[in-house]
């Protein structure tokens, strides 16, 4: 069997054989550690067995998954629209870029925990707090990526486009937007990962629904199996969203060699 064949996807599962093998090795190691824990001086609840984790996954409440997913998607859409609009305005106006860039950089330097605390201090509504934190963290990433992508559109293409005298709207819709689509997809993938992590922390503070809130409950009840179960769901959610974006990306960017 060649190396290439080893790396080819397992048709029925849809992911590479290497991934499957490494996951199986990880699971087996985990199970061994779980059984050996008492002999290693580790409390048995700290490394729950796979069976216990599987049972905990069976008790997952889908509504919390849906709530977290809805928060992430809504916030990402708002962040994307705001980031794109700001990037377009900054691309068009040098003074605006000069005044806004330092503020955006400042926002990006503020730790997520600080934003969560600010949100708790400033806003009474839980949903608004979570949305605010997600938008303020993900929006600047979309904006910076989009602006950089716009600046990277080859000068020759911009020159060609201008020679045909487009309106400002046509210039953006016919040239700039399609040209930055690859970067936008990359930005979405980065931001999905970021948003999933941030939403969990934001939900830990004050929320009564969502994966973060359930993680907090599990921690208060010392239910390590539940913590692992929710974490697995969170990771699965991230992979699912990334897979959806990759599928759309593959479809829309067929023109690439």
């Amino acid at each position: 069997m060649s190396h290439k064949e080893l790396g080819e996807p397992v048709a029925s599962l849809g992911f590479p054989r290497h991934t499957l093998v490494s996951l199986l090795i990880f699971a087996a190691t985990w199970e061994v550690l779980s059984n050996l824990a008492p002999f290693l001086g580790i409390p048995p609840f700290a490394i729950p067995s796979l069976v216990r984790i599987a049972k905990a996954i069976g008790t997952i409440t889908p509504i919390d998954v849906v709530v977290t997913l809805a928060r992430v998607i809504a916030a990402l859409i708002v962040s994307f629209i705001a980031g794109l609009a700001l990037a377009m305005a900054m691309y068009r106006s040098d003074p605006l870029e000069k005044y806004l860039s330092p503020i955006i950089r400042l926002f990006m330097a503020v730790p997520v925990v600080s934003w969560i605390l600010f949100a708790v201090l400033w806003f009474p509504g839980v949903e608004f707090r979570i949305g605010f934190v997600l938008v303020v963290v993900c929006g600047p990433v979309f904006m910076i990526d989009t602006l950089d992508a716009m600046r990277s559109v080859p000068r020759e293409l911009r020159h060609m486009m201008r020679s045909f005298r487009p309106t400002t709207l046509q210039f953006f819709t016919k040239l700039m937007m399609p040209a930055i689509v690859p970067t936008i997809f990359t930005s979405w993938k980065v931001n999905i990962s970021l948003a999933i992590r941030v939403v969990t922390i934001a939900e830990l503070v004050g929320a009564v629904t969502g994966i973060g809130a359930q993680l907090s409950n599990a921690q208060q009840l010392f239910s390590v199996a539940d913590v692992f179960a929710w974490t697995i769901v969170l990771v699965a959610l991230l992979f699912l969203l990334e897979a959806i974006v990759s599928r759309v990306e593959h479809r829309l960017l067929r023109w690439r060699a």
Partner: protein
Amino acid sequence: MNTRDPGGPPPIEVRGVRKVFRQTTTGQSVVAIDRLDLTIAPREVVAIVGQTGCGKSTFFDLMIGLEAPSEGTLRIGDKSPHADFDYFRGKIATVFQQDRLLPWRSALDNAKLPLELIGLPEEEQRERALTWLNRLGLGSFINAYPHELSGGMRQRVAIARAFSVQPDIMLADEAFGHLDEVTAQELRDTFLALARESGSTAILITHQLEEAIGVGDRIIVFGKSAKLLADIHVAHWDKSQYGVLREAIQATLQANSPDPRLT
């Protein structure tokens, strides 16, 4: 919608045009074009030759209206391509040195681009773009993306894109210089035939003398800062004298002053 003036393309009048750029690094002024006077009649096919850095590309940008003269006037009919920028939408088209096709668009969609910008109905866009792609021998490749086409085919798509709007003025900036000689000659001939047939005024900017002599009704020789060194009507030269003409233009460019054989 047809943007073409029913009276045919208007004349081009260049009077005392000067273009000065300020270098961003040193702050020094660079004179790219110094007091250029030129008239190009409707439907003329003009080749502009000059050495690298002589101001050809600046003149090209002035013609398409992306730059304004620092002094003097450049008028097409009674309008300025810079000040009346929108007026010339669909009236001036360009073919560049590289094809400059949009990589995410098929050949057909690239050829349609200027038609979309002038707001033609979708069906007419498709019909016109198809017509021009077929005329350029690309009927079997309309759905191909640029990366699936050869350099010559991509340049054909770029030519189809430019002609699809049926412009009054067609500009080509070193459009064939990067292709192999056989392909370049073939495309030059096609371009010329289409320009004459469509009744556009055609201006080809080149540094290749063979190309200039081969395509132009008229050859304008630019010296440094686009100084007009010679204005040659090719019809006044017998084909057997083309070798002499070539040598004379070469000597003019090297000396940066008109060779006596051209006066």
